[in-house]
Each structure stands twice: as structure tokens, then as C-alpha cells.
């Protein structure tokens, strides 16, 4: 699974780095950033799903790698 943030939609609510701090961080202005290349390590899938489902701006996308 891989996660991505759409920077056009992100407004820096920070729900992703609250709920999945292993996958997301904040930049200097509080906007969400994907840590590393966004590949979700085993065991973090649920955190990734929560981050997607709780983003008020629907700015996060998680998809299975093909």
C-alpha cells in the first residue's frame, strides 16, 4: 500500500500526522507531508486507512501498489 497527499487540497489540519505519525509529518507551516516514499510498512495499514478516512479535506489517497 502507498499513501499520497494532494498538496492542492491539504490545509494543514494535521489529522494524518496525529493518527499515523509513522507515515506522515508536518512541514514548517503545518501542512502534511508523506514520510519517505509513502510505502506503508506492514502493520501500518490500519493507521493509513484512518488517516485517509479522517482527513477533513479528503486530501489523502491510499492505494495498493501494483
Amino acid at each position, binding site marked *: 500500500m502507498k499513501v499520497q497527499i494532494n498538496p492542492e487540497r491539504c*490545509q494543514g*489540519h*494535521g489529522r494524518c500526522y496525529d493518527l499515523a505519525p509513522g507515515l506522515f509529518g*508536518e512541514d*514548517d*507551516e*503545518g501542512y502534511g507531508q508523506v514520510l519517505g516514499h509513502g510505502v506503508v510498512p506492514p502493520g501500518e495499514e490500519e493507521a493509513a486507512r*484512518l488517516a485517509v*478516512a*479522517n482527513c477533513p479535506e479528503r486530501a489523502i489517497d491510499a492505494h495498493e501498489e501494483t
Partner: protein
Amino acid sequence: MAVDERFTQDYRDGQDEELVGTRSEIVTGPVADWTTDFSHLEPEWAADPYPIQDELRQGCPIARTERFGGGWLPTRYEDVAAIAYDTEHFSSRAIVMSNYRPPLDLAPVGGVPPISSDPPFHRDARRLLLPAFTKSAVAKREAATRAYCHTLIDALEGRRDVDAAREYAQHIPVRVIADMLGFPPEDGPRFRAFIEHSLEGVNLPPEERMAHMGELFDYLLEQIRDHLDNPRDDLTTYLIEAELYGQKLQPAHVSGTMALLLIAGIDTTWSAIGASLWHLAKTPADRERLVAEPELLPTAMEEFLRAYAPVTMARLVKQDMHWHGVDMKADDWVLLSFPAANRDPAHVERADEVVIDREVNRHVAFGLGIHRCVGSHLARMELRVALEVWLERIPEFTLADPAAVTWATGQVRGPRTLPLRVGRT
């Protein structure tokens, strides 16, 4: 050191004393029909706005009023979100619905940037503030906030009846924002008067409202001058020194942003803390569960923010248009009810229930789009710490008298008196 001439004289001197905007007739009194005559300033709304919003959402869903010179109240999530995202048709030139509309040329800056600003200015004014309000920046204030919460509880020691709104909730954001702006902590009671005047005195005559605003800006100018003489590491000095487009900020921008931080940072968070304690006081099962499982608090807190979202914003319609089934006119108000959006069953399951372990919670208590609350990370830190300390120190409490609880009217809603009985009953 060069004198900063922006603030040597009162920069408001020479401004027209007359109100240059548009006034409308002040209409108060009971609401006859919520679909055509809504008012968020009447006691029945303050006491419990949710059934009113639910009924409007099912049958209306965009209510109208002729009060305040005309305005609209969308109640569906979909409509609230669409307006929050649409800065082309809706302006933030005024964000408190009242009987006075500021002149058009106040846009795109507005009186209290960046909340009152429209694109493209908005983004630049907002960027000045964002670094001070990131999650990691506000985390540095957590220890002091926690210590202060303990001090407040220490002062309640041995009491059986306490007012959690007046004696606890309200003091926390006052102290935090005074520290951030570098204002004397003993000025707290004055801030509360400023807030009451700007957010709750909406139906006072415009001249009176302006006079109250004048007092606030007198105070801010006093603080600015003190910071010019004694610069320090706080937001006031930061704003005095900040630059935009290669120049120091306009004096009205400095004081306007200070006014925003002072007003928006206080009674919003006070309301969120108070509403959460009110819920826990009347819901023993939730209170007991959070005492037993403190790790659930961050999740529960989001549910309190959803169900009791304190903040409603306003917008002004830019031009006549047919919008989602209604005919909006230029300069009509729109009340942007995040509380109503958060309780839309089309957006959230079991919308009318408070589910403290709700895992999927896409609430909009802090708004949506470019005006997302700049202080949301600070508010969340304060709310979490305030509830953690309270539950740790006072795990048992109930409403002393449910009928004695009073709620603020207007666009920020939360308990203003919250009498609690502490200890086992």
C-alpha cells in the same frame, strides 16, 4: 534605534469617524419561523440549536432571515463545504454577522487579517502566522499549560460546587494566548470583556460596537508601544517586525491580527473545554470510560469537537446569483454553520449521537479550505491537556443543576456557566 513611526501617532487619526459601511435595522425578539426568520442570537438557539438545525436540514435546507439586513443559513454538510471552498462567490470581508457591513474596499485585507482576508492577499497574511501555530511549535507550550491547569484545580481544593466554565475552562486559553502575545497575564479579565463585546454584542447599535472595538484597539496600541520599547520573543514583536512584499506590515494589519489572535483564540477553546466537561458531567458512562482509558481521550475529544463544534463563521455574498436553489443577493450574509455540517446524517453515521470511540470522524469544527483555523493545533493541545488534568484530578463530577447551565449566544457557542458537583454523589 530608529523610531517606528507606524505607531508613534495613533494610526487611526484622520480616519473618518463616520461608519462608511452599510447599516441595517436591528431586529430582535422571538423567531416566528426558522425557515424565513432565523436568528442565532435568540435564547432558544443558544439553549439548544441542534433540533432547529436538524429540522431545517430535513425540510428547508437553506434558511433565510430578513434580520441583519438579510442572510442565509445552509444546514447541510454539502452546502457548508461548497461555500467554504468557494472564495470566488463568497467573501470573508466580514466574518461576524451583524447589522453593519463594512465597505467593499476593505477587501481583500479585511479588519482582522487573515481570517477577514480574501485571495490573493489571504495566503500571504496567513503564511506569516502558520509557523508559530504548527503542532510542534505549540507542543512547546504544553508543559506550561498543564502546570497552569493544575494551579486552577489546586484553587478548587475542598470545594463541592464549582463552576467549570468560569473557574476552569475560560482561564486556560486566556493564559495561553496572553503568553503567546506577550501581554500581562493579569489583563485576562479585560480580554473577556473585549470578547463579549465583539462576539456577543452583535445586536448593539453599530456606534456602540465601534466604541467597544475602539477600546480593544486602544489596548492593543498600548501593548504594541510597550513592545517597541521592550522587544521580546513573542508574537507581538514578531508581527511588528514582520514583512510582507518587502515592507513592514501596515499598522492596522499588525493590530488587526493581534485582535484576531486574542479574540478567536479564547472563547472558542473555552467553549470546547466547557462543552466537553458538560457532556461528561451528564454522561457518567463516558466519563467513567475516559477515566479508566485515558488513551481514548484524543479520539473522544474529536467527537466532542464534532458534536459540540463551537464555531460558526460568516461570509458575504459577492454578487447576485442563484445558488443551490435560492436567490442570493450581493451583500447577503451567509452563516457558515460548521456545527450543523457536523451533524448532517448524510455526512456522518449516527450523527445525533455522541460516540466517544468514533474512529472515522471527518468533522469540520475547524473549518474547511483556505481559512482552516490557524490555531487548531493550539486549540487541540489546550483541549486535550485541560481534559486530561481535569479527569486525573476530578474523576467524579455531575451537573449540579442542569437548568443553571447557560450558553453563549452568537457564532461561538459554549457553556458560560457550568455548575458542577464534585465527588461521589
